[in-house]
């Protein structure tokens, strides 16, 4: 019987038979916790295991990205609790200077093709972009993983999503994934792994692959992969479903409140007045994303009364936008450039929206209350940049 990508990865980490639907015990290459979830992991760990050491301190780590540096006393306390636990057990901490944990793990080579990584981040599955089985888990799961190095997992079925054709110029990975959220909703790949195939998927660079894989969570999927060299399913692998999606000539897409699945063509939402914009997050926080935004903002100004917040995914991305002049372009346009992390998407150091404040964001969620009290629209970096210049939702054309 042939295996899908997810079945192959899990099989390489388990002595049980890793076929879809089976419950297996799986070895974990990396087990991590953030500043949210992390303190509860420590609490669970110490209650259950006292001062016993983790299974392997070298494979165990913390990443502080949610509230970095801590902007509330509670987060400061919680981060310090994790630091002290880490020191005691010789565990690494990628501290508040480093940025989004999943991205740091890609940069550091900790998340590698064929590997397994868990953490207290529901977007840990963006690691599918590099062929790694990343999975977000709660603090009970992670405390158990710290101590034992393994977890149980129900091997998910796989859905092959075939992208037909190429999007129109000016549309990118974010438009692709928003269109998939629009057409597939929260049922088509629910509780399954997705294998994205077709030229439009294969043509994506790493940043684009991260964007595409990052919103599988919003479609209720387990993880997305883009099969390729060294990460191919067997020809006779079994799929729950094969779905073809025509993306030829796809134009920019925007998710309207209240969910990432209420997606419309940009043209149908153009003209909605905005108060703020946000470019960043684990979905669109790479240098390529800021380069696209800077191409739109170069020589132009964010409209008076509009606030544009920019948050690089990691310190390395920050360094790159600094070195390449992208940061200066964004700054000159009036953008507020903050330090790396999850701020702007989750509650954290980039602030929240107030009641009635309309925001357009490159993030991945716009559920009510997620970024504050105001309604949030989700779009690509180009569309967010253009909208901030216009003061209303719109694309770069005609600026």
């Amino acid at each position, binding site marked *: 019987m042939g295996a899908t990508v997810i079945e192959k990865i899990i099989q390489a980490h388990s002595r049980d038979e890793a076929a879809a639907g089976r*419950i297996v015990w799986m070895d974990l290459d990396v087990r991590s916790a953030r500043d*949210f*979830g992390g*303190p*509860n992991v420590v*609490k*669970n760990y110490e209650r*259950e295991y006292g001062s016993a050491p983790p299974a392997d301190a070298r494979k165990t780590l913390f990443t502080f990205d*949610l509230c970095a540096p801590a902007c*509330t006393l*509670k*987060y400061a306390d*919680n981060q310090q609790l994790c630091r002290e636990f880490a020191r005691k057990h010789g565990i690494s901490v990628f501290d508040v200077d480093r940025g989004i944990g999943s991205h740091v793990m890609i940069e550091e080579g900790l998340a590698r093709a064929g590997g397994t990584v868990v953490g*207290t*981040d*529901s977007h*840990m599955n963006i690691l599918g972009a590099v062929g790694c089985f990343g*999975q*977000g*888990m*709660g*603090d*009970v*799961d992670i*405390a*158990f993983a710290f*101590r*034992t190095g393994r977890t*149980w997992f*129900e091997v*998910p079925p796989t859905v092959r999503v075939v992208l037909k054709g190429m999007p129109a110029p000016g549309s990118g990975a974010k438009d692709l994934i928003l269109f998939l959220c629009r057409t597939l909703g*929260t*049922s088509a790949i*629910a*509780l399954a792994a997705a294998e994205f195939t077709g030229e439009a998927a294969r043509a994506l660079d790493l940043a684009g692959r991260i964007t595409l894989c990052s919103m599988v*969570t*919003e479609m*209720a999927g*387990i993880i997305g992969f883009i099969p390729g060299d060294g990460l191919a399913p067997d020809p006779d692998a079994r799929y729950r479903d094969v779905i073809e999606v025509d993306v030829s000539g796809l134009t920019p897409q925007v998710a309207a409140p209240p*969910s990432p*699945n209420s997606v419309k063509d940009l043209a149908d939402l153009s003209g909605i007045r905005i108060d703020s914009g946000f470019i960043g997050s684990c979905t669109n926080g790479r240098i390529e994303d800021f380069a696209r935004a800077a191409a739109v903002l170069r020589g132009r100004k964010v409209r008076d009364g509009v606030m544009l917040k920019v948050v690089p995914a990691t310190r390395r991305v920050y360094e790159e936008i600094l070195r390449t002049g992208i940061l200066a372009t964004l700054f000159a346009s009036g953008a507020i450039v903050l330090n790396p992390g999850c701020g702007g998407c*989750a*509650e954290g150091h980039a602030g929240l929206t107030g009641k009635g404040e309309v925001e357009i964001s490159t993030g991945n*969620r716009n*559920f*009510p*209350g*997620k970024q504050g009290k105001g309604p949030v629209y989700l779009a690509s970096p180009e569309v967010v940049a253009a909208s901030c210049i216009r003061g209303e939702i719109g694309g770069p054309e005609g600026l």
Partner: protein
Amino acid sequence: MKELLIRGRVWVLLGADGKLIEDIDTDQIFHNAHLHITDIAQMGAYALGNLEGWTDFPKKCAPGDIIVAGRNFGAGSSRQQAVDCFSALGVAAILAPSFSAIYFRNAVNSGFPVLRAPALEAPAASKKLESGDTVEADAAAGRGRILRGNVPFTLEPMSSVQLDIFQAGNLFAFGRGRA
């Protein structure tokens, strides 16, 4: 053996359209403004605190009550608090047609009964199941019953690992048993 027959008063999470609310996400269940809370006893006060029409749930809910929700319950973040806040209130179980994968795991691992019951969508929409009714659910056999009208329904029985962890109490206790 822990009791696998769950019986209690239900809260049916209906939206303005009279149907079960779908895709209720973890920010509606336990808002990220309260994520710094690490003491389970303090979490109950925020349960469903950001779900329109249900923000008074912690005041209405009594220990032993059961929640009935729409499909993909617990979408969004990996926060354990979105499960623990219901444990804190003494909620006996959550029944929904489906749950988000992470939410389901979190509940299983903390020994909190989450049961997949697609068959409840129809009675909830036709008012054969309403808040205040009493429901029985046998998590091992996969059978349930709405006491008013004596309406039987099916549910997915717990998987072996869910059952084992539930019987042990939680993942930690289950792990000790295996070691």
